[in-house]
């Protein structure tokens, strides 16, 4: 696919916090209908990268073009067609699920909002707790609501930071299935940061291995597993985390 059609083009992204280089010259692109995984240990630069992609953190160098808009100068045009979910950012706990969805529907100027909320309620089985406060929900229910919020504007670019962290296997599988269905039906591009290697293997077309803010390797999950001669992506991750990408290749 032509690069000009990419949902996301990141070029030479750098972010420093005083003497620490959190992100060090990251470049990649993401085509519509594809999912890219950011993999790396704690402090590798995943959340910093996502924060820059969302425009809440300014890069020191580099450029981000999201859905044809330069995030440095025109981020709101892109943000209207993007969305984001992370277990580390909560929805207002004292508002009911319906109120939360209504708030974000207004913020994203969703047309025919009540109809859209109805569709999300059906899709994510929110009916039983639609009028319950978000703070009173179980972890699994919260995740479903967060995902419904992330899809309320039917985004063309979806950024997910550990979307299944601390979920039981059944709920995590449910979330992954919903994401697959959404992508299949909408053609959205998804960027996923995760520590769950099985999830990355299942959802991602391409994987970027991050270490100390740099991309130390990249490829499809199958390519990486084959290249490192490992049984699965978790072994690849451990190899890179302990011995570095160069050592693994040797």
């Amino acid at each position, binding site marked *: 696919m032509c690069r000009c059609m990419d949902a996301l083009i990141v070029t030479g992204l750098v972010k420093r916090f005083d003497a620490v280089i959190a992100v060090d010259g990251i470049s990649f692109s993401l085509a519509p209908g594809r999912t890219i995984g950011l993999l790396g240990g704690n402090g590798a630069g995943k959340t910093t990268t996502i924060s820059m992609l969302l425009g809440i953190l*300014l890069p020191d160098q580099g450029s981000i073009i999201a859905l044809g808009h330069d995030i440095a100068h025109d981020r709101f045009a892109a943000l209207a067609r993007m969305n*984001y979910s992370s277990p580390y950012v909560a929805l207002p706990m004292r508002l009911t699920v319906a*109120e939360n969805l209504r708030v*974000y529907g207004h913020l994203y100027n969703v047309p025919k909002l009540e109809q859209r909320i109805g569709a999300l309620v059906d899709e994510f089985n929110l009916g039983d707790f639609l009028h319950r406060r978000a703070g009173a929900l179980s972890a699994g229910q919260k995740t479903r609501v967060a995902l419904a919020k992330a899809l309320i504007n039917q985004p063309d670019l979806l950024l997910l930071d550990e979307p299944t962290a601390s979920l039981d296997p059944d709920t995590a599988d449910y979330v992954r299935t919903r994401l697959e269905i959404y992508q299949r039906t909408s053609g959205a591009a998804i960027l996923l940061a995760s520590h769950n290697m099985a999830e990355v293997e299942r959802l991602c077309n391409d994987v970027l291995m991050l270490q100390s803010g740099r991309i130390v390797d990249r490829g499809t999950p199958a390519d990486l597993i084959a290249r490192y001669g490992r049984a699965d992506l978790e072994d690849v991750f451990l190899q890179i985390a302990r011995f570095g990408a160069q050592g693994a290749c040797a």
Partner: protein
Amino acid sequence: MSRFAQSARRIWGLMYRHLCLYRKSWPRLLELGYWPTLELLIWGFTARFLSNEHPGPVLAIGAALIGGVLLWEVALRAQIGVTLSFLEEIWSRNLGHVFVSPLRPYELILSLLGVSMVRALVGLAPATLLAALLYHFNVFAIGPLLILLMLNLFLMGWWMALLVISLLFRYGASAEALAWTLAFGLTPVACVFYPITALPNWLRPVAAALPAEHIFAGMRAALALQRPAWAQLGAAFALNIVWTLIAVLVFAAQFRAARRTGALISIGE
């Protein structure tokens, strides 16, 4: 949908988020009217005592005290309303979602101003009613001038709130105590209950630089002379414009700095 309509809808979206909190919570509703009513009772009985002990000119002082309490609460509630709503976003760990939505920073501010106006008007209603019932003080007797006085006080509350939010960007949630204390701290130099001549000479320039001194001098003149003090109101309005511009510049600079340092992500920590 036009750009204006889209913007108005986003502003309403965040206002709706905050108004939902009050719809179902009687403690929150009670809190809105608690402090203005308490202040009114304290100063109202003080004014009644003074009026009973020294009838005559002190009667006007009593009216000025009660009027001062009610109107100063407008500025206090306006400031607290904005900063508390912003803090609510921090406490609920929701700022991340708000800042990555298409809501512009100026729309965020306008939403918070709208919420604070509703909060202030609802919170002051019981105190205004009590002032009429207990002390026979009708704040609406000030006439149409009341709207200009309140507009000035809302403006003053709002630019103070912008400065507090800027400090929250700079210092994080550790600066949240300022949300309650900043406006209260200005009360001695706001000349709410006494003229500027009651202050020592060295403190008068500070008071004169604040719109409140001119607003309350105007209110006292209106109560005593039954006619508006346009010069005082004009000075208050001009000062409010200057302070608002300063606050907007400080807010914009701190917001940008927060995006550079990552404070928008870690503001609640």
